[in-house]
């Protein structure tokens, strides 16, 4: 299967900070979750793949084009949908105007077809009823859906979503998951998130990053399996555990290397994620 993204040895530094360190990655159709603690390099990787910043070193192609060339970068941008972290809005624009504006910047130039496309994506994210409302009058969730519509306009083949559910209430988050799941049908979606539930529910693949490197690349089930036999229950927090917390049942759920005879529990994706980080950010 032809990968949408093929990257090898990507590195990026911001001053003295190494944001990406020799990252290699192949992405194909479906939703890929990108997990990692703050400062892991998730946003940096997304920005490099979205052609927002060039890498210092490395080789990669997106949709078969080389973003290192002006022509290649333009071709990538033509087929890219990007939802940045905490996206900005033009408050005086209506939802329709904002998405239309983005559509123009994506070089959708046929006015009739463009407006049809804008209406389509606004309908897809459930904003048809408020498309004439100014963005300043919309709720945070509606604005976020407007931003998703802007990312979806033009039917991009590669969709990059940077923490799209941050700040949303549970109901809005569920709505957003539906949208992302729908968006992932027939295209490649790279979803950066802190929410392991998002990955568990949406993604057919997960990449875990820490300190600018890829720590895990596989399916959610494989990530969960990493914690197989490494999660146990105890009456007190086990001092040998890499992470442990009191559950609603009053017992402690411990993650790490269990003592002999420990009461093993069924692992979750989050357990696998925590163990993959190897304690680097578990304490946080």
């Amino acid at each position: 299967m032809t990968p949408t993204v093929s990257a090898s040895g990507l590195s990026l530094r911001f001053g003295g900070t190494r944001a990406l360190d020799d990252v290699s990655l192949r992405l194909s159709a479906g939703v890929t979750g990108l997990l990692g603690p703050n400062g892991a390099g998730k946003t940096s990787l997304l920005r490099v793949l979205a052609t927002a910043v060039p890498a210092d070193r490395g080789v990669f192609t997106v949709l078969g084009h080389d973003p290192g060339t002006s022509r290649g970068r333009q071709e990538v941008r033509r087929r890219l949908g990007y939802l940045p972290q905490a996206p900005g809005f033009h408050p005086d624009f209506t939802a329709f105007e904002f998405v239309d504006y983005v559509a123009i910047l994506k070089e959708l130039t046929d006015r009739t077809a463009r407006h049809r496309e804008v209406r389509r994506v606004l309908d897809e994210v459930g904003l048809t009823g408020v498309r004439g409302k100014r963005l300043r009058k919309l709720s945070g969730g509606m604005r976020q859906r407007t931003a998703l519509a802007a990312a979806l306009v033009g039917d991009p083949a590669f969709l990059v979503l940077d923490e799209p559910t941050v700040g949303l209430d549970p109901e809005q988050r569920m709505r957003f998951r539906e949208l992302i799941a729908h968006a992932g049908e027939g295209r490649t979606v790279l979803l950066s998130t802190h929410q392991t539930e998002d990955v568990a529910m949406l993604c057919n693949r997960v990449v875990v990053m820490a300190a600018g490197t890829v720590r895990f690349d596989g399916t959610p089930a494989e990530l969960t399996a990493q914690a197989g036999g490494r999660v146990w229950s105890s009456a007190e927090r086990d001092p040998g555990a890499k992470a442990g917390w009191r559950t609603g049942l009053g017992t402690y759920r411990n993650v790490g290397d269990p003592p002999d005879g420990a009461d093993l529990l069924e692992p979750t994706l989050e357990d696998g994620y925590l163990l993959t980080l190897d304690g680097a950010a578990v304490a946080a």
Partner: protein
Amino acid sequence: MTTTTTAIVTPPAGAAPAGPRASWAAVLALAGFEARGLLTRLPVLLAFAVYAGWTVWRTRTSFDGFPALQDADRATQTAPLLVGLAVLFSVSQAVLRSRRYDTERHFAVLVLPPWRRTVAHLLSLVPAVLLVAVCVGGQFGWEALKPGAVGNGSPGELLVGPLSVLLLGTLGVLFARLFASAFAAPLLLVVLLFFSMFAAMPQDGDAIRWLMPVVGDYSTRTLPSELLGRPAAWHALYLAGLALSVALAAVLVSGEGAGARSGSGSGPGRVLKGRFVDHRGVHAGLAGAVALTLLGAVTQADGVPAETEKARMRYSTTPQDLQKCSERDGTTYCAFPEWTSRTDDWAEVVDRVRSLAGDAVRDRPLVVRQRVEARYGPDGDAAMTPLTDPNQVSVGTTWGGNRVPEFAVAVAGVLVTGKEAEASALCDGRLVTVMWLALAGGAEPMADLSRVRVDDSTSGAAVVISETEPLQMTAAHTELVRELLVRPREEVGAKVTANWTELTTPKVTTDRTAHLLGLDAPEEADECGE
């Protein structure tokens, strides 16, 4: 590592085929989007409303209904500056919008690069500029269609309004690209206004004065169009060149142009940091635009051409050599070529004054000579010297309003004294006859009396305005004229005709004049120079 991949070739919905043509189509689409936003911004809407309202209100009564089109073209220049300032402010806000609302992170990865977006912002100015051009054309057309219109407008002068708006708009774009602050545009407005105050000073000389978009004159004197000596075409070129230079500079400072360089080494996708602008065409265009600007700026500061100076001298000193004359009812009317259509208006006044004097002046030959003092250019304000040839009366280049009764006074003065120069020095009872002859035939004699007096009064002593030397009415003259103007015209006219010889005798006293016209001697003072 070498990776072989295959691009997905399905085009985005609604997209034009990729390539430069699609990019320019997107620029035009964005320009249309931004233009709609610009024209509906409150400051721009208000500015256009004020501009249109003021233009309609002013043009209804401008030039007293008798415009000289070489003045009317310049009258279109100042008001568009209000629109220009609003456009500067609003377009600057539009350019800064992405930065202000933090959408740049998102828009930076969209297909249309920043420099093309800047081009779209620049193009979004075009509708506002065209709208101003339509307003300018409408204002000028309205003047040109007035029945009393004479002369010729200059396309160069008419372009100043729209070009000023274009220049201010491009400055707004450039400043927003240079200084990412919402305060940049207001600060620029203050600086421009401050500079314009000093640059407009006449002592700064033409070179500085002509650097401003709108260059006014310091006189209301109307000159034949060939004498204006204003470098209108060069100034339009200067403004156009400057606007183009600023626009191209804004494109150049718009950041990423051609994108990141390909790095060393082989294989796809080797990416290096670094941004640069590689627009040789834009650089060349900027160089050309700056050259045009300099050409316009230098040439417009050259001063008045020698031929124009000579023509000004000819028009001022030997107008008869340039005029066309026509005779009507014993009066010869000599007008400069652009004013021949105004002869009818002059003849109406002459006939009215002559008819009041009756048989006494029926066969008196009279020459109405149009004159202009053009030696000091449109900025000059020098008065013309009175004519010394007998039976010749001066008429100026403006008409309508107060100019009509003033001309009537001049005609009456020559009919009474025989010479314009003598009429200017009147200080006896003849002035009463002159003023009655001039004003009694009008529709509103008393109102005309106040109009021709410098202080708009109808009592006491006052100077009477004239195209040449002013006349001086004593309080006694005013008293008698006021009494005569309220009496039946036929009654006073009969007395004037019957006593013409004595009424027009030099040194006739005011008391004697009163007696001859059936009035009591005036009670007010009768001393010239009061």
